Each structure stands twice: as C-alpha cells, then as structure tokens.
C-alpha cells in the first residue's frame, strides 16, 4: 500500500493475524460449539433416512425388506449410533437454550429457566415414548 495515493506513505503493515482452519480445536468450549453446530448433519441425515424409508415402503413389501436389511449393515449401525448421539446432543442443547429464546411470565413473574428446560425435556420424553409405543404396535 505504501506509495499509493489513498494510503499514507509510511503506514505500518496492517496486522491481521490469520486464524487457523482448526481454531475450534484450541479449546474445549470451541470444540463443543462446533460439535453442536455439526449436529445439523445428523438432523439432515435422519430426514433423508425417513424419506428413504417412506420411499421404500411405497415400492412395496420387498423393497421395504431390502431397505431394512441395509439398515442392519454393521457400518451403518455404527454410523447410526453416532448420529443418534448427535441427535440427543441437539435435543439437550436445544432445550437448554430454550429459556433464552422464550421468556415466559406468569402473574408478572418470570418462569425460572429450570422449569422451562424441565418442561421441554419432560415433553420430549413423553413424545419419544409415545412414538416408540406406536412403532411397537403398528
């Protein structure tokens, strides 16, 4: 820049420290943040699996059986354990952020954060139990 018209001749070099692409490995807080953001990949994967399931079911019993035998492949089962852990992390972190996203007042008093988180988690458990029960009966 030195010598051009729009910058002072003897201006020092701008100090712009380069951030490493692996900045999120520097501290556990950052790593946790990136892991939380990456749970969206688990969410998208699950959406695709649900679509594939419905698609296979639409093709008939044979296609559905093939699909389910694929789902039993060891590498896919291992991956799904990871995905499930990611989904649970998403749920837990989502619910624990809920009090910052919604401020509930009852009788002019703010409902304590722990109550909002607790209510969400309780609803989550009930919904999950209902879905699993439904799957066992269908």
């Amino acid at each position: 820049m030195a010598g051009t018209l729009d910058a002072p001749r003897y201006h020092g070099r701008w100090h712009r420290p380069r951030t490493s692409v692996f900045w999120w490995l520097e501290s556990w807080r950052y790593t946790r943040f990136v892991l939380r953001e990456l749970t969206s990949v688990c969410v998208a994967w699950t959406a695709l699996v649900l679509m594939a399931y419905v698609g296979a079911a639409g093709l008939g019993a044979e296609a559905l059986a093939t699909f389910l035998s694929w789902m039993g492949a060891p590498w896919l089962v291992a991956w799904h354990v990871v995905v499930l852990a990611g989904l649970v992390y998403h749920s837990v972190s989502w619910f624990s952020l809920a009090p910052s996203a919604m401020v509930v007042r009852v009788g002019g008093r703010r409902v304590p954060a722990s109550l909002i988180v607790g209510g969400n988690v309780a609803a989550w458990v009930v919904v999950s139990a209902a879905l699993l029960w439904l799957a066992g009966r269908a």
Partner: protein
Amino acid sequence: MSRRVAPLLWLLFSAGGTVAAFFYPALLLIVAFVLPFGYRDGTELSLAGLLQPAVVRGLLVVVVALPLFHWAHRFRYTLYDGLQLKHLAVLIAVLCYGSALASTFVAAYLLFTLP
C-alpha cells in the same frame, strides 16, 4: 432481498430445530434400530393404514422438511465459520437452501404417491 428473507430463514431454522429436538431421536431409534432388529418382522408393518389420512402425510412432509431447513441454515454458518469460506457465501447458501427445498419436494412427492 436478503434482509427480507433472513427472518424467514431464522424462523425455519428454529422451527426445524424444535421439530428435530422433539421427534428425531425417537424416529431414528425406530427406523435404524427397532425396525431392522425388532422383535418382529419389520415388513409386516402396515404403514399404509397409518399413513392413509392426508393430514398424517402432510404432517410427515413438515417433519421432514423443517429439520432440513434447520440443517441448511446451521450448516451454512458452520461452513462459513468453521472452514472460513466466507468468499463462497452465495454458492454455499444456494447449495444448502436449494438441497433442502429439493428434498422437500421429493418428500412431498414420495408421501403423496404412496399406495
């Protein structure tokens, strides 16, 4: 343009995050573990009866679509910040929201052409 769309994208992000938080762990548990390894043959499951009402199909489209937009929004920022790809902003946004939108159409097509 982007200033007008941004609130809608954040709304889809948080709606999708909520749907995924409540339903996805159980749904994955069912499709990836209970049905393939269940105590009964998964093929005898009668989805047809369960999915007959149009309301149920519509709800399922929502249950698939909203979390996809949640992913699109969150993953877009993960790429920006995590991999420092700010210069590819437009391309990343188009790919993320575009694939979420395309998948939504596929999901709707699959669900509403079910026998």
